[in-house]
């Protein structure tokens, strides 16, 4: 079960180490982590995508994270209306003959071409996980030379969702 967790943490030395250490020690499977400063330079936001077996496992992840002194707030935002994006850079084999095709493929995904060389070109795309996967799938036959993707970063939407089922016993 894939869940997206958003945490704000103190922007202090070793905080990422603290968090990832906690995950590995308790054998929680992390799919991705992104970290970056918030509007307040003393606070960073981390977005984790984790794979857990059960809501009880998820409950533990959140409680353990919350126990860290450097963690200010943790939320499982999977069931909320969120905007979640990842960024991917794809360097694909591109001959003068295929450049046009690739560009056409990229257009509906609003991917931009940020570098063109003699034998390859680089696309940049942002979007949710499925969109990124779909584009990679289309581009693959041309020959992927290199691919780099960030993990998911996410924020809640400004408008709230109507129902909010709490599946875990987070009590504080």
């Amino acid at each position, binding site marked *: 079960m894939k869940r997206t967790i958003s945490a704000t943490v103190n922007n202090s*030395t070793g905080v990422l*180490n603290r968090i990832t250490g906690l995950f590995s020690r308790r054998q929680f499977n992390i799919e991705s982590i992104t970290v970056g400063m918030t509007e307040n330079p003393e606070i960073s936001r981390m977005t984790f995508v984790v794979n857990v077996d059960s809501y009880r496992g998820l409950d*533990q992840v959140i*409680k353990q994270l919350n126990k860290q*002194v450097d963690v200010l707030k943790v939320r499982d935002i999977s069931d909320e209306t969120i905007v979640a994006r990842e960024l991917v850079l794809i360097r694909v084999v591109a001959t003068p003959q295929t450049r046009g095709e690739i560009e056409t493929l990229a257009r509906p995904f609003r991917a931009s071409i940020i570098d063109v060389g003699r034998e390859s070109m680089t696309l940049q795309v942002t979007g949710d996980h499925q969109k990124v996967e779909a584009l990679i799938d289309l581009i693959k036959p041309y020959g992927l030379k290199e691919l780099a993707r960030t993990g998911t970063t996410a924020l809640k939407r400004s408008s709230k969702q109507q129902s909010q089922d709490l599946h875990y*016993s987070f*009590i504080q």
Partner: protein
Amino acid sequence: MGTSVRTQAEKPANEEQQTQKLNGSQIVLRALAEENVDIIFGYPGGAILPTYDEIYKMGIHHILARHEQGAIHAAEGYARVSGKPGVCVVTSGPGATNVVTGIADAMIDSLPMIVITGQVATNVIGTDAFQEADVVGVTMPITKHNIQLRDVNDIPRVMKEAFHIATTGRPGPVLIDLPKDVSMAIGEFKYPKTVHMPGYQPTVQPNRLQIKKVANAIERAKKPVILAGAGVLHADGADELFEYATKQQIPVTNTLLGLGSFPGNHPLFLGMAGMHGLYAANMALHECDLLINVGARFDDRVTGSLSHFAPEAEVVHIDVDPAEIGKNVETAIPVVGDAKEALKNLLALDKAPVPYDEWHQHLRHYSDEYPLWYNDDGKTIKPQALLDMVYEETKGEAVVTTDVGQHQMWAAQYYRFANPHRWVTSGGLGTMGFGFPAAIGAQFAEPNRDVVAIIGDAGFQMTMQEMSILQELNLPVKIVIVNNASLGMVRQWQELFYEERYSHSLFPIQPDFLKLAEAYNIKAYKIEDPSEARTTFQKGLKEDGPVLFDFRVTADENCYPMIAPGKGHHEMEGIRP
């Protein structure tokens, strides 16, 4: 490296003025004074020398261990008995790595501790400098929190926060890594009165609604039982537990670390629960319809196999650490809060007691039919008889410390702890070498009480160099070596589960503990004859200074009753002779 790290040469001349310009080491020690720390356990070395120089100049009460492991276990013993944070100061690299075991021990047993480690100067951190180790990295998973100081002006705030974190909520060790140049830099000393940590807000007051649910569950229950853990002791809630359990007439069992939170000789007390717990206690857990866990973390040594654990019970879990609730056992009524506050709140509801006569009778039957037992042949000293004798001769009033293993379980079974903070044992980590130095710390916490270190012969050999402290300070710790010339519990498991293949668990040759004691100028007795055990112990107990007793006990005695690994509470072995 921050520009604020200045050298001593820049020290302003007018330091006597109220500006309170001090160097980092002085600030650390002043902060300790502000926190009413009256004793430090430690060991000096290169990176922490500036701090030790200030200790010298200021004349602070410092106990010099002979190994850093001794220092930290002593600090643990002090913390466990005094309820105050234990403070341990060591140097960088090997000094710090030598306290890792003690930090892990304090973490798993939730002991309030402040560990100050020296560190190489900030300009060489990360270069594999002499005596450098990434101690913050190493101890991250085994501390409640840790921090490396980079700026002398952060010291007061960091110290204040460290004490706050160590002592509030679920207590735990906090490590402060102090680079040498930071400890020498000049900064301002202004000790903060409050802490501001938005990420650390432990819930002390339990939720009212949840408390009501607990009270209602008790009203509904026919067969309730309270499992009280060390959380009751950390919260100083033994009186409230007594009042509540006796008022509601609910039987009580303790975890190993919770012993002493309820009087060990009270009719409502079922004895310790768990792997070597009493049959009545374990059967109560197995058969109860309501299990009220107050301040215990459902450790696997208490629960046995989780698939068989308390199958009939509605589970109430009161814990100050929300992450403990639901971690191992699914909980019907979770209560996040301090054990004392939760019990107070329950008492305040003033519910009339429910008669549980049938349940009491049922459990009494277990207690009467399946008491602790051992076969006494009168030829050798039976360890169980020895522990029973220690209990009688100290009138149950001593502070008892142990290592891990058979002697620990026998002490837990036979020393019927009646009072809180008299039982110091390495529960979660099961640390050999813990008990003896912990007794030293305990003796500093309770200078006027008998402190008895009940130690196996193997564990004693791990930290026995601390006899130096006893010698130096004439500390009246009484060392009771339960000597079976083996790693008793390892030997027992090999006998039961490894077809008697005693792989490296027997000591064919033992040191002469009497001569060792003599080398440290400590009075010692070797006792082999069961008829002399009591008189010799009585005699030694009356001595003013330290005494070592080398009790040679039956070598192949096993610790029973027992829940074998993977079994449930109802499947105890060795409940009858």
